[in-house]
């Protein structure tokens, strides 16, 4: 259970006023003392929980909410570009766009557009490394028309050749324009450096987008492997009860073919280790800096994971309350944004590192500040106040996990597909409250190695200072990938 003083009880308007009005003639009030004297009633409130059902073997979650005449239906499918080969990468990446815009077996793309716009339905299609998803948001009164059209897009797509060509042209243009965005350029290069030819490091290029890799047949093959019954999880949120939702969901499930065969898990990436300094030369007013190295902390119900998340919040993941932004921005004025990252995938190693952008002249000083700040995290414990800030944000802000019914259902669907327990959010809130400052120092001591950072700088070497950069280690110059 979450920290007892913040139990979710809520009494409207019962917060206690404990201090006098601010502006008193002739006095300057001490607001810090005044707000410390404020007393807050606990929130007497029970977080809504979705009902969990099964429809023809498919898990379906429902959260009824009658506030507005809107229904959101969510479909999540196991399967993404990480589960297919590079020769199918483009077709897998393009699948969401082609489902949305490629028409259906019975309706041309134009007809679909007219209907979607006429009924003002909102749909979205997303893809990731191991899953794909789609969402429909519609007015309750149009649920049946909307649901029918949306599911036809998903289950019986047309993959119109003209639409494929339009998508292909747009993606080729994105490849060409990648170099226009220094941040995007840096992320691409950094992912290639660390993940090599693993799917995590892939980005679409002209070879992927060759016509023979993006035929309607290619899309159909991938579609059949992913958008099938056994890969599906459903969610419904909004203005509908289960008795009304059930028959509709059953129709959706029945319209999907069974999966031809199960998809195999993606390969475990071999992440580059050993560090190094890399430079991509670009004549820019600002240098982009990314640094990271692999760590073995995984998402799990254990102290190490919770200590890593709280430690990252203190290091640089917690905005202005964290050290990196404080040092790089507030103290030095080097950058508008600076943050740390600590990713914790479940099956393979994650990354710990940092990101910022600064004027070329301040690039190396900013790197020094970040590395120094990191080093402190493994040699000394953070203050109790820093840990309190990080934990209080999670505990007191717990209610923000329940602002919208579709947000709650979507999170629960992620737990289902990610094989996390239904009460993971509550466990997380409990876990972070048990972290000590010693746990945080220990997790950094065990897992953070600033000297093993792979550091990439995209910028003007003459203004950055070649000698200054070389002081960080031998510099390898990377050539930007030239689109063909």
């Amino acid at each position, binding site marked *: 259970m979450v920290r007892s003083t913040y139990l979710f009880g809520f009494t409207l308007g019962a917060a206690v006023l404990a201090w006098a009005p601010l*502006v008193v003639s002739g006095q300057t009030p001490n607001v810090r003392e005044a707000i410390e004297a404020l007393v*807050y*009633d606990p929130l007497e409130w029970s977080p809504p929980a979705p009902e969990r059902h099964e429809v023809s073997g498919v898990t379906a979650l429902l959260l009824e909410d009658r506030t507005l005449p809107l229904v959101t239906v969510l479909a999540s499918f196991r399967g993404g570009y990480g589960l297919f080969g590079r020769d199918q990468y483009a077709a897998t990446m393009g699948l969401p766009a082609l489902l949305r815009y490629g028409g259906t077996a019975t309706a041309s793309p134009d007809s679909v*557009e007219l209907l979607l*716009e006429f009924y003002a339905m909102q749909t979205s299609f997303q893809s990731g490394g191991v899953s794909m998803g789609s969402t429909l948001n519609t007015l*309750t009164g149009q649920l049946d028309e909307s649901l029918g059209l949306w599911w036809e897009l998903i289950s019986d797509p047309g993959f119109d050749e003209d639409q494929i060509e339009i998508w292909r042209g747009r993606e080729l243009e994105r490849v*060409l324009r990648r170099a226009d965005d220094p941040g995007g350029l840096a992320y691409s290069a950094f992912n290639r450096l660390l993940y090599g030819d693993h799917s995590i490091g892939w980005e679409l290029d002209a070879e992927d987008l060759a016509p023979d890799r993006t035929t309607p047949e290619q899309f159909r093959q991938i579609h059949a492997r992913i958008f099938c019954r056994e890969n599906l999880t459903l969610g419904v949120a909004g203005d509908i009860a289960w008795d009304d939702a059930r028959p509709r969901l059953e129709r959706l499930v029945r319209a999907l073919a069974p999966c031809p065969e199960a998809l195999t898990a993606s390969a475990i990436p071999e992440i580059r280790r050993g560090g190094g300094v890399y430079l991509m030369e670009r004549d820019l007013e600002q240098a982009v800096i990314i640094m990271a190295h692999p760590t073995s902390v995984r998402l799990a119900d254990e102290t190490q994971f919770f200590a890593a998340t709280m430690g990252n919040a203190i290091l640089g993941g917690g905005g202005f309350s964290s050290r990196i932004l404080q040092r790089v921005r507030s103290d030095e004025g080097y950058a*508008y944004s600076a943050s740390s990252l600590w990713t914790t995938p479940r099956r393979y190693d994650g990354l710990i590192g940092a990101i910022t952008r600064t004027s070329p002249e301040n690039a190396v000083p900013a790197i020094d500040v970040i590395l120094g700040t990191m080093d402190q995290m493994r040699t000394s414990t953070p203050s109790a106040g820093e840990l309190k800030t990080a934990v209080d944000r999670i505990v007191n802000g717990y209610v923000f996990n329940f602002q919208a019914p579709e947000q709650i259902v979507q999170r629960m669907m992620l737990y289902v597909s990610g094989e996390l327990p239904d009460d993971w959010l509550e466990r997380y809130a409990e876990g972070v409250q048990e972290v000590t400052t010693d746990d945080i120092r220990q997790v950094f001591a065990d897992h953070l190695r600033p000297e093993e950072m792979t550091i990439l700088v995209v910028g003007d070497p003459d203004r950055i200072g070649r000698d200054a950069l070389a002081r960080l280690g031998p510099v390898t110059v990377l050539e930007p990938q030239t689109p063909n």
Partner: protein
Amino acid sequence: MNHAAVVLATAIAGAGVGATPLLAQQSMGERLPVREVVLENGMTVLVLPREGAPTVSFVVRFGVGGVHEHLGTTGIAHLLEHMLFKGTNSIGTRDVAAERRLFVQMDATHDTLLLARAAADASRVSALEARIEMLEDSARAFVLPNELDRILTEAGARGMNATTSSEATTYFVELPANRAELWFALESDRMSRPVFREFYTERNVVIEERRMRVETEPGGLLYEAHLASAFTMHPYGVPVVGYMSDLQTLSRRDVEAYYRRFYGPDNAVVAVVGDVDPDQVEGWARQYFADIPRGEAPPPVLAVEPPQRGERRVTVEWDAEPRLRIGWHVPSGLDDDAAAIAMLGSVLTGGRTSRLHRRLVMDEQLVTGVYASTGPGTLFPQLFQIDAIPRSGRSIELVEAAIYEEIERLVATGPEERELEQVRNQVEAGNVRRMTSNLGLAFQIADSQSLLGDWRETFRWSELLDSVAAEDVRRIAARYLVESNRTVAVLRRPGS
């Protein structure tokens, strides 16, 4: 009324908001139970209680932005926005008096620095910059860094931020509902007793923000060049983030004077939306804000952009793929023609079946995207803008010509009723969807109250769109989208 509109009307009528015959004529938005409180000092507070998770969203909108600047102090509204996160007399400091003593020395040194820069005395400039840095470091010994952020973060706040536009500076945050009073205590303190500490460091942060958003971003460069060319006189032509040379010279005194002039409570609208008791919120508003004295009356913006008498063209050379931006001068967002102008934008680029999207993106595949908008503000005559991203190998000239052809076709025949109906349906559905977000609603009613003098006006927009006829769209396209009234900006690679 078509089928979809009937469905929408039925759905909205059934939304559970109590209705009398009179109220039934109002939209769902207009019937929201917003309590409007105007304090003695002129500050307007809007309170909208909503069911759902026990959270509350706060928005404070000051009617001040880029249009209230002039050359030499561009970017000051945005810099002030940054400075208001630095604390107050009591928040963010261990000893404000000691800080202030150092401010005097720092600011005097800065005055001297500006003179040294003007004299191009490099060694003196360097020495003075080092002295300012040293003094700011000394003052930092008395600072509790980012204390405002820490207090709100520990309270569980989400999304604390601010934004500055041509006409407004808006501060926002969300809190658990039981901590609502904390916001009143902190915000009234910030509004009445801010201290602009760490000023010169924060000015550097804003300079880095400009580098990120404009000087390394092709779209930002083109946007800035386009507005500067289209507006020769009106401050809409000045970038909200400020010119680099101005950012390098703005002083703490400049920002303090600007704050005093524009940040009075009578220039502020507060919106509180979420799981709150309106009586209690009104009580807190009176308790915490009512004693803040009125500010100076902000001077009106009197600059008027003279009529454009001939096409203007501007080229930005940059090592990036090409972009195109076209703008035509049109009336303000408060004008009777505003709804027809919005309808024109939707007919041209609103959705995949819109005219320009269909032709340029789908049929001829000249561009990857084409987007119409109005801007950069609302209150003054503005631009109707079209942005296009040409596909590789397609000439910008071809794209431009196709856009003009489609406009001519629209002027010749006007839009079809089907096109207008589609836009109206989208707007109606959008009205319902906007009700899902406390923060979105808080922004909407605060903007409407501040800009239009009535929070309900924003919800009347669909009625105005309903009243737009095909001939209105044709008429305004014919009147405004003409060659002599347009400014065209192109971004190309050097030598291309």
